[in-house]
């Protein structure tokens, strides 16, 4: 056998075609397995991101190739009060909506984790806001908050609480409250279901042990549930913040940034300037200005997600 094999192997070694290399070199083969994913990421993520950043340094408009203008777009934005208003709106929107989504989501998750009748059905129902397409639910909210046909105004009027319609989307404060409310309504299921999944990984015997140790229900939550849930809270809140910060659909369908730019987020303003007004360079600069904020959010979660000491170490089961 060996005598036969040796002369055969020799020509193969010297040939060293791409195909033989593929067959013998595991790293080379591994590289080719990664190519599809890499191509996907480069074409659909890295390239648009790079192009966006590049555009933000040019004066490109729709239909006209731009020239490099260095930081001129950013200098413009620096003195643009509407831009700063949109930054403020975005931060307010993200902060208030995320905090409330977390509070409501955690509360719902704790509730759904209890034993109760129709548990499976209730859990499924919680997901409904999540599965309805954003634009559809935004349109529904548009009607709910309509200045003339709002069901809320109608109900309150019939109850005698108010005697004229509330101008939900026409008043700056009300408009902000309404879009934040709609965002919370849509985002709560994601937080609730993810936290519920986290809750279910906590062994019930830990609660029994804590109960015997003398813990009240609150102490059970404070000392057992919450610390064991922190890793998943970090993940879910990072996603929640990123989604909320970059929100576009809901605002665009409900208010288009109005009234008087009170609900303009950075994403909607960027779209308005770049696509509607055709100032691609300026729009790209607004989009790029979101990057530092998003990086900051990711950094926070990065450190929050660092495996805690109690999660480390090998298990000896």
């Amino acid at each position, binding site marked *: 056998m060996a005598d036969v094999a040796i002369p055969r192997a020799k020509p193969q070694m010297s040939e060293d075609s791409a195909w033989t290399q593929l067959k013998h070199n595991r790293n080379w083969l591994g590289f080719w397995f990664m190519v599809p994913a890499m191509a996907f990421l480069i074409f659909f993520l890295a390239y648009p991101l790079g192009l966006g950043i590049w555009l933000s340094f040019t004066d490109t408009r729709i239909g006209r190739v731009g020239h490099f203008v260095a930081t001129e777009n950013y200098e413009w934005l620096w003195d643009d009060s509407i831009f700063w208003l949109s930054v403020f709106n975005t931060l307010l929107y993200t902060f208030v909506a995320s905090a409330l989504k977390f509070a409501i989501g955690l509360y719902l998750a704790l509730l759904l984790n209890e034993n109760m009748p129709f548990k499976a059905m209730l859990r499924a129902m919680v997901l409904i806001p999540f599965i309805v397409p954003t634009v559809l639910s935004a349109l529904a909210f548009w009607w709910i908050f309509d200045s003339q046909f709002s069901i809320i105004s109608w109900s309150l009027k019939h109850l005698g609480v108010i005697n004229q319609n509330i101008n939900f989307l026409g008043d700056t404060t009300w408009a902000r409250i309404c879009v934040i409310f709609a965002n919370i309504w849509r985002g709560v299921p994601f937080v609730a279901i993810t936290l519920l999944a986290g809750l279910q990984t906590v*062994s019930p*015997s*830990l609660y*029994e*042990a*804590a*109960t*015997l*140790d*003398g*813990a009240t229900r609150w*102490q059970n939550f404070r*000392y*057992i549930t919450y*610390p*064991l849930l922190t890793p998943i809270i970090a993940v879910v809140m990072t996603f929640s913040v990123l989604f909320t910060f970059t929100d576009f659909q809901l605002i665009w369908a409900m208010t288009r940034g109005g009234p008087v730019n009170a609900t303009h987020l950075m994403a909607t303003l960027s779209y308005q300037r770049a696509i509607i007004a055709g100032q691609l360079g300026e729009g790209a600069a607004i989009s790029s200005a979101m990057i530092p904020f998003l990086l900051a959010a990711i950094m926070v979660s990065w450190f929050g997600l660092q495996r*805690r*000491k*109690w*999660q*480390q*170490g*090998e*298990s*000896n*089961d």
Partner: protein
Amino acid sequence: MSSVQIRDVRKSFGNFEVLHGVTIPIEDGQFVVLVGPSGCGKSTLLRMLAGLENITSGTISIGDRVVNNVQPKERDIAMVFQNYALYPHMTVADNMGFSLKLRNASADEINKRVKRAAEILALSPLLDRYPRQLSGGQRQRVAMGRAIVRDPQVFLFDEPLSNLDAKLRVAMRTEIKELHQRLKTTTVYVTHDQIEAMTMADKIVVMHDGIVEQMGTPLELYDKPDNQFVAGFIGSPAMNFLKGHVRVNGVAAFEGPNGVKLPLKTAPTASDGRPAVYGVRPEHFTIADDGAEAEIIVVEPTGSETQVFAKLGGEQVVAVFRERHQFNPGDKVRLKPDPSLVHLFDDATGKRMNA
């Protein structure tokens, strides 16, 4: 430390009753083992004692106090769980001190008591570790430490050794017994392993299908099982049972399967011809010329003793000998049960017939 009284306790899950009136008196400082096959209700009973399950009817008292409606944390008991239930995000010291922290004990007090418990259990070098960084035996000890620190009236153990490997289990068995001798705290220990029950208990409670089959010291249960279930459950290898009839023709005897004659010291009165089960422990066989003929099937030497599986009257029996007999499969031997150590059970009810 306290006595515990379990009186006519019943437990139903919906319409399904799992405990049918269980009464167990436990004296102050006693080490009581609840043992039985899985599903017999022993763990449920322990959880009722801890307050983790409601009591359907009957009463449980700890000391002089009926605890049926007392919250678990007011019962002053500590429990060691089968999976230890250590808090994964707390160090060993924090795990052990958690109950004291919840009672607002001072940091000094917590520190002192945790240190003392750690010394008792040889956990001192591990106090800063997290449960994940511990071996199975160490986790087991932390779980016990958590119980000790509280200095409770009663310790409850729910199959604490079943997650350990065989060697560690034997070592921990001794450790728990030693601990009890040292602390003398009333202990209720649940296991399905009769060896654990025999080696550790002051009193064993054998449970089966939601009732107490028998209570007593390990040797009482071994020497005089009340019924065939206890006889078969206690002892390893298990007792041999041979069906047949009692014969009293001047001298008492037992007619086993296929007419095999087996010795009886005395027959219960008016029992001639009664169908019965003849029980003999493997270690109570001897080789004697007047024994019953048996054919050897398998020989298993363990060094200290030899287990012999043989066919006696067509039925398979096990015999254990301390002496080193030279047996081969197929050999014919004469096995003789020690008549003063055999057990006789009613064929229909399984109740013990002989004194």
